[in-house]
């Protein structure tokens, strides 16, 4: 049997071997190759971390359900619900950049029914390094990652600094800022009007907020529109950063996949600068989400900047499923034949590189493209 397997391996090219894997198993391998190509190192994380770290930064995780337990020393531990935070905690305060990627299973408790779930997450982080270059490289890798999933994809980009300055300018401060951000995320311009009336926001500033929310489509046109809406130095510099990013992506000829859209803004307590989200047509939610999170590093007392993204591989399980029409190519029915006869029959069929499943009689639960009775094969031989 060993000879049979090595024979098959020798016959098939590496590429064919890779293609045997279902798409959703190919993807993490493709992405690993991509990240390694750009010099990223794999980060390996412990399953358990002290719970305190997550509790202090609960809103970074955007969900409540962390699975906790007490260790023998009485310390409350968490089953890792996230990787980014652990990378940030362990990042060394140094001027040199740190490029890491990960493929880890994280554990969460679903808010709906309290069930525990295990989620496969892949992502990368660029910590430290040059501010402008790091975001160009990370956004480029986000685009390449999406391309590895589906040739039809879109990466929405926005800038937290732009929206933050705009809200400051309009006098929308801590108390009602969250409500306003929620409406922006929903593209809910009719309720932004109501919100502005209720909070006595200047009507011109309200119109600017609504105009920013309404921006979508072609990046270059959208960027011109955004620049025309920039009301102060911070907003102008944010628009400039987006423009620089666009120029950098044009060098990779992937700029057509970028869109400007402010509905993707994230939690301003952690994120600043550029944020982005990736979509493919076959999933109802974003499959990639990332951004610059210098604020999270400050919370951990680190001086570096950081930008990164995560891919929600769970979202892709369904989208990447290859259609399953048959359980096997060939079903070999051996009836009363001896094991020796069955094995020699398999030997003669397997040269055609098909999947063969040997069964004594036709099973009800197995669908096969072809059913061969052993008598036909032995007869031929």
């Amino acid at each position, binding site marked *: 049997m060993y000879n049979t397997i090595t024979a098959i391996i020798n016959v098939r090219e590496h590429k064919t071997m890779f293609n045997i894997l279902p798409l959703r198993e190919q993807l993490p391998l493709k992405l690993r190759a991509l990240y390694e190509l750009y010099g990223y190192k794999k980060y390996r994380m412990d399953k358990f971390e002290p719970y305190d770290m997550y509790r202090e930064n609960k809103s970074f995780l955007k969900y409540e359900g962390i699975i906790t337990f007490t260790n023998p020393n009485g310390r409350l531990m968490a089953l890792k619900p996230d990787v980014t935070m652990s990378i940030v905690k362990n990042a060394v305060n140094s001027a040199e950049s740190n490029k890491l990627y990960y493929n880890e299973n994280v554990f969460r408790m679903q808010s709906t029914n309290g069930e525990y779930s295990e989620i496969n997450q892949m992502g990368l982080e660029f910590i430290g390094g040059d501010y402008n270059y790091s975001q160009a490289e990370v956004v480029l890798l986000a685009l390449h990652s999406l391309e590895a999933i589906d040739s039809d994809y*879109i990466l*929405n980009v926005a800038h937290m600094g732009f929206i933050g300055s705009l809200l400051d300018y309009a006098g929308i401060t801590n108390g009602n800022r969250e409500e306003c951000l929620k409406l922006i995320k*929903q593209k809910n311009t009719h309720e932004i009007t109501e919100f502005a009336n209720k909070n006595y926001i200047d009507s011109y500033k309200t119109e600017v907020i609504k105009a920013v929310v309404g921006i979508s489509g072609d990046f270059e046109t959208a960027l011109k529109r955004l620049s025309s809406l920039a009301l102060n130095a911070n907003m102008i510099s944010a628009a400039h950063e987006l423009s620089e990013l666009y120029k950098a992506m044009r060098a990779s000829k992937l700029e057509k996949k970028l869109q400007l859209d402010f*509905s993707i803004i994230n939690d301003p307590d952690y994120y600043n600068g550029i944020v982005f989200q990736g*979509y493919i047509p076959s999933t*109802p939610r974003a499959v990639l989400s990332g951004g610059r999170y210098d604020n999270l590093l400050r919370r951990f007392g680190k001086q570096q900047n950081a930008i990164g993204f995560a891919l929600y591989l769970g979202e892709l399980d369904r989208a990447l499923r290859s259609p399953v029409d048959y359980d096997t190519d060939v079903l070999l029915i051996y009836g009363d034949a001896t094991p020796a006869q069955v094995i020699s029959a398999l030997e003669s069929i397997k040269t055609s590189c098909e999947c063969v499943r040997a069964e004594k009689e036709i099973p009800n639960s197995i669908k096969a493209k072809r059913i061969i009775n052993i008598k036909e094969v032995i007869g031929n031989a």
Partner: protein
Amino acid sequence: MLNIALPKGRLGDKVYALFSSIGFECLSMNEDNRKLVFESPEKNVRYLLVKPSDVAIYVERGAADIGVVGKDILLETQPDVYELLDLKLGKCSLAVAAKNGWTDDISIPLRVATKYPNVAANYFTSQNRQIEIIKLNGSIELAPILGLSDVIFDIVETGTTLRENNLSVYSTVVQSSARLIANKSRYQFKADIINEICRQLKTKI
């Protein structure tokens, strides 16, 4: 093909009339039958008729690209969708109502019968009022009459049902009307057509 989820019933009929007035008519919709999916290949649209409270689920999970749903349901289920337009149809309010002449006894938890347990809980929490929620699925007005609850938290359109059951509005909490919603991923790939629909619908409301 653009998939549009509409709420079955009166509101859905009005919304369909609105969509056909901007050029998205679908002749098979006028036939009197029990089909739930209506397709117009020439207009490139497909209408799905679903239970009003399910519209947001169809859109959030991408079974429909866009849909029309009451704000009351959006407040209750908080789906992760875009809310693009207020169609100003199916206007009503979410209100607390009780038997005529009822007075609140704040020393004990208030028993609230409702179809909207989340909105009700949020509202009473914001009022610092301790409550006990009784989730019902219909004929909410019956609850205070039979002493099942002290008050009801429900939608009020004209107030006729309340009046006929000797109930009256105690406080109005929030206004509701039909909203156009869109799936966040589908919107990215069909933004042109969806934005065009919004633009044209705006001229009709």
